[in-house]
């Protein structure tokens, strides 16, 4: 077998396993961080510091009774969580997890595929991610589910616009759509957040909205809509919805770290005197540290800010973030002119 192909398959499996594992432990982290921020202890019964809690939760999800509402559309009802999970996992293929491992003289890049439209692929997958929620909410044949689905779709479409425009400014500055190339550029210069602070802020806010996290968790706002789009779901199908949300969060953090915070690069990495594979492994560790920081920020914000009202959400998306993103593009253009970056 072609060693590159074999390597890619192994990398796929590793990335998939790592995202699932991190998502599982994010449920633990979420509860622990929530607890600590509220001066509580959090889960601590299953294993040391409650570390086996995700296993217990997963087992519980599998053992629970499976309920499918009689008046629901069964095919779509079952399809929806799977689709949501699929779109959540799909994004991880374009993220550069490290610079590259050198084995027997060949350099194996730690990125599953470096397509030259990586950013657009990212936006595309994010934009179809809403179908899982919409189909699930509609197929449940429940008012609250439908309300959640409608909210999710309008919210995602609204924030995709600002997100895309924030990315356009970044693309203008870096001159590429490939995530691998963006990460490599930040090795040579500063991290992109230095040049694109406003773009980063807009992207961060949109990432919160796209992952349906508080303060934008209107699709599943439990105080208004029972459980939102997954009201009727139970057992592992519910687990898929909840799990996919955490995977989305993990991937969003990875994208944020890669696009704006230097990816796997860290300051003075070439002055340490490390070479080759050692450096590559340290870089991967650094990337994961950045991702964990972003995940912490996601959770920190969730347990600090109250939920937006629906009209406030729309106002923020269309009347604040969109003009800001357009202004950001404008300023980026001026900046490129001043720095002589125009070709």
């Amino acid at each position, binding site marked *: 077998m072609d060693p590159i192909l074999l390597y890619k398959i192994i990398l796929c499996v590793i990335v998939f396993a790592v995202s699932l594992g991190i998502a599982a432990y994010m449920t633990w982290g979420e509860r622990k961080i929530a607890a600590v921020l509220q001066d509580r202890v959090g889960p601590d019964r299953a294993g040391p510091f409650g570390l086996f809690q995700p296993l217990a939760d997963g087992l519980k999800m599998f053992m629970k009774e499976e309920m499918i509402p009689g008046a629901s559309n069964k095919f779509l009802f079952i399809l929806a969580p799977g689709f949501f999970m699929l779109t959540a996992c799909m994004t991880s293929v374009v993220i550069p997890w490290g610079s590259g491992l050198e084995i027997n003289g060949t350099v194996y890049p730690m990125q599953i595929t470096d397509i030259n439209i990586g950013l657009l692929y990212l936006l595309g997958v994010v*934009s179809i991610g*809403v179908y899982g929620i919409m189909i699930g*909410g509609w197929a449940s044949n429940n008012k609250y589910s439908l309300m959640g689905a409608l909210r999710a779709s309008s919210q995602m*479409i609204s924030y995709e616009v600002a997100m*895309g425009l924030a990315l356009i400014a970044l693309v203008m500055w870096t001159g590429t759509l490939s995530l691998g190339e963006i990460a490599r550029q930040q090795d040579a210069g500063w991290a992109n957040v230095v040049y694109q602070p406003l773009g980063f802020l807009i992207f961060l806010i949109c990432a919160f909205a796209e992952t349906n996290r508080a303060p934008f968790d209107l699709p599943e706002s439990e105080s208004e809509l029972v459980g939102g789009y997954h009201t009727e779901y139970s057992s592992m199908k519910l687990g898929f919805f909840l799990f996919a949300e955490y995977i989305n969060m993990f991937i969003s953090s990875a994208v944020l770290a890669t696009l704006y915070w230097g990816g796997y690069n860290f300051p003075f990495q070439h002055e340490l005197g490390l070479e080759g594979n050692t450096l590559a492994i340290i870089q991967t560790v650094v990337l994961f540290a950045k991702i964990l920081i972003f995940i912490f920020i996601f959770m920190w914000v969730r347990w600090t800010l109250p939920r937006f009202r629906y009209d406030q959400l729309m106002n923020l998306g269309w009347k604040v973030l969109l003009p800001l993103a357009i202004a950001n593009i404008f300023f980026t253009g001026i900046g490129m002119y001043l720095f002589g970056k125009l070709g």
Partner: protein
Amino acid sequence: MLTEYAFWFLSFLAVFSALTMVVTKNPVYSVLSLILTFFAIAGHYFLMNAQFLAAVHIIVYAGAIMVLFLYVIMMLNLNKFEDEKKSLFMNSLSVIAGCILGFVLLAVVKRTDELTIVAKASSAEVGLVENLGNALYKDYLLPFEMASVLFLAAMVGAVYLSKKEMV
């Protein structure tokens, strides 16, 4: 070899889902099969090395427009399909219109032989972002900007129509 299999698979998928979209009675199924059609077509773009077009196709059509379609259908709750009786006049008109469309499509298909040369030339790197950008902003700048002005006009019109109180 793999590309050929992919081509046949995607073509079959596109035709099949397009037919499902027309035939099925449930509007939600129609929308979903239309989305599937878009995916198949995006796959075709990929095969033709037009990655940018494929990605934009997914973002714009599957990601935005069809979400709005689905949104409206869910909102209106068109679950129960009511088979309205149409008059003979309307039916005959629709048959004529359909025949004209079919005729046009047939004429287009018949003329594809002349286009084979162009299709071969496009197999290089014509679909990549740089080339597409160069083509749009150098060779076709005026039509491109005209299209954007058209969209702007449409947007202003939509905003005007959606205003409740007429000025």
